[in-house]
């Protein structure tokens, strides 16, 4: 069946079985591969997108449920002139990604949190940021969220060098 909705402000219509998860429609039908597959059961957050501004794990959302709604993916976060979202900029400044595979989802979760609460405190970050990262980038994710919302954070790099450092 044909299902219509908007993705990153562009209207789209896809021919898909209604039970197909939004994730696979984005990745395979619309070639938006920034949204990742990690578990398929809403347990990791790699597939996070915004549906009408709300954070959703797209692997577990049937595409029939998004008819007429507005989807934002990682590809749609930057502004029309190509300027990265403040959260994306903070992510680069803090050098958050390692393998990077979970990071689209992490950024979608962080932007949704900031949209919802403005300047999240540590407890709000703990509660909202439930996406998994096997590379263990959590301390830098925390730091980048605080930096993106103008909150004091630790020194730029917490690595320190001993005597004889080059």
């Amino acid at each position, binding site marked *: 069946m044909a299902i219509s909705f908007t993705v990153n402000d562009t209207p789209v219509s896809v021919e898909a*079985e209604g039970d*197909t*998860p939004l994730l*696979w429609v984005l*990745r*395979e*039908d619309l*070639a938006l*591969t*920034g*949204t*990742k*597959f*990690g*578990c*398929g*059961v809403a*347990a*990791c957050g790699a597939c996070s997108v915004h549906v009408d501004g709300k954070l959703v794990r797209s692997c577990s959302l049937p595409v029939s449920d998004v008819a007429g709604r507005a989807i934002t993916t*990682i*590809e749609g976060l*930057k502004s029309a002139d190509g300027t*990265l979202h403040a959260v994306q900029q903070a*992510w*680069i400044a803090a*050098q*958050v*990604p*390692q*393998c*990077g*595979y979970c*990071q*689209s989802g992490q*950024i979608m979760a962080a932007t949704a949190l900031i949209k919802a609460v403005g300047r999240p405190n540590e407890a709000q*970050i*703990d*509660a909202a*940021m*439930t996406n*998994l*990262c*096997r*590379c*263990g*980038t*959590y*301390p*830098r994710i*925390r730091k980048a969220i605080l930096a993106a919302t103008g909150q004091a954070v*630790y020194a730029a*790099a*917490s*690595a*320190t*060098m*001993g005597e*004889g*450092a*080059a």
Partner: protein
Amino acid sequence: MADNPTPHLAEDTANTPAKPKRKGVKRRAFLVGGALLVGGGAFGLYLAENSTRSRAKALTETDGAHNFLTWMKIAEDDTVTVYSPHIDFGQGTHTALGQMLADELDADWAKVVVEQAPADSAFANTALVKGFMAELSGMPGVVNALPAAVIGMLTRSQNLQITGGSSAVRFTGQAGMRVVGAAVRLALIEEAAARMKVPASELVAANSTISHPATNRSLRYGELAQGAAKRSLTSSPKLKDPKDFKLIGAGLPRADIPSKVDGSAIYGIDFALPDMRVATIAAAPVRGGKLVSVDEAPAMAIKGVEQVVKLDDAVIVVAKGYWQAAKGLAALSPEFSDGGHAGMSTAAIYAAQDELRTSAKPSNTAGSGDVDAAFKAAGNKLITANYRVPFLHHAMMEPFAITGHFKDGKLHLWGGLQDPLGARDRAAKAAGLKMDDVVFHPMIMGGGFGRRFPGVTEILDQIALLAKQLPFPVKLIWSREEEVRHGTYRPQSSAALSAVLGADGKIAAWRSDYVQGDNAEAEAGFIYDVPATSRRHFEYTSNQIDGPWRSVNSTQIGFYNESFMDELAAAAGEDPYRFRRKHLPAGSRYVAVLDEVAARAAWDSALPDGHRRGIAIVESFGTIVAEVVEVMMLPDGRPKVLKAFAVVDCGTVVNPLNAEAQIAGGLIMGLSAAMGEAITLEKGAVVESNFTDYPLITLADAPAEVDVHFINSGAKMGGIGEPGVPPASPALANAIAAASGKRIRTLPIMAQITA
């Protein structure tokens, strides 16, 4: 600097080595892949190596750019391209290798590009094989005495293009990148001296320019490249004194990061071709089992499903897209045999290991001194403890996905693996093709942690067999369930430790009897000064395939030794930090690392009620890491990690920003495994299926900050990707013991707390 993970691939030339030229061999030295070759006496070798060189040139040389053997080229616009034989999956390897070469070259960092070397034997990594041989044989003298050319040949014959063992920077970087950078710099200076007609000694190299201050003239590297590329390179250039490093030691940002925050990075799972189909697979639930039968009809009835393909031990559904394939697979009820492993279970494995330890002879014994005599000596106090650790899943966030296309007799593969050359070899064997007929296109990887070595990646066999029988390209994706259930896990292992304390409160003798597949001695040695030790390995293998899991054997051995050190300290009535310290060689790097972590964690300072610290120190991959974690016990009995500290001596730090991320990430992965991770077996099959029952640590449970500190001792360079992991689990168990009195001897911790 820019990072371009997609190599230029000249597919046809990739597989047809240029004919070596016979004439004109002068007595000159060439660097080929870091190896010195001298003409004349080594004529045959020279020719072989020369063909390698031409082949590498053919693969990478473009108009107006000049190749310096297989490692780098300089373009006329000054761009320096460095070819990394290692895969970068987020450890910052490419950046670090580029920094090492560019520093010695005195290149302008803004004009340095690091590219993935093509998956071709011309780029096999000589420096790596030398490093590993030295380390693993324990006889560096013998390896160093071998002619470099022989090692080069050996490397190529073994197709080594591996990323793992924390090898990139310490072997390839030190023995390869720095030497090449320095040698090419000298060739550029020679060329400039000839052109300016001045002595080389009057020239200064900086920022990709050679200048002659006396006459105020200068030439850019791009202008000199063509001439310099024709000059001989010395194999033993003088390397920089560390005090002159400009790029090595600098926290330079990674070039791949912008593409990983806007969704533009293309991973193996993202790759697509026109007309491509997507497939997914279910292999026999019991490893070693075979596919007995399957009725294809239920899958074929699903819209979008095109084909069901049977392999010896698995069934594959090919469809228009992943969802259709997954639905088709779920509709099937394949029957698999159990390969005779139905009796295999987690409990049965531990029982068999206990039995082996008490009734069998060890397969290997390391250590010295008379342990038995010390154990019997009057007045000595005996302490014993048994430890167990489970199988661990790698849990790379990107599930396996490889695209294959068999066309005109060639099998093309696109995916992320830690050893592209090994991947070609394995796929060729599976498909019954010659290695030259397999072209591997390396893609970005969403994590690896030891899971993506061709030796343990059966997906290569699966995609090779599948693609070979389909007329169109096909991407095979493993579901997370397939990942979890068909891993090549860190082995389930157990150990009985015993030691006697002498009247002086010091350890008089130590014995550890550990049971698992591998002898861990070469990797995870014993760092303490104890007069008599016996470390006995009892070999046991289950139906599972043991795979290298980040830091390999050092996680379990580190957990055993460092938990037991705390138990001994308690028995001796001593502080765990001071007890360790007095068993480490005075003035050693170990003591410096341990003292530093105690100082940074303010080890002796008072903590709030219920908060306690734990400490551990492990040396792995040539790097010494000590960690302290501070925990608080929550009302439900769970530990909450509040703070973590790591002090690292890896000799020299190339990029502190990346190194910090690697150590902190390793520490967090170690905590994650210790807290909740376990693969368990029942009736020969894996019980867990997804992150729902294989829980990874979350942001809320990880320490908010990991304080990482490097000691630049200048010692031989050690690894950085793996050594952060091993001390984490014992430091956590030690902190829990201090906080709650409960000694965790079996991992994971949550299973013990909720039990």
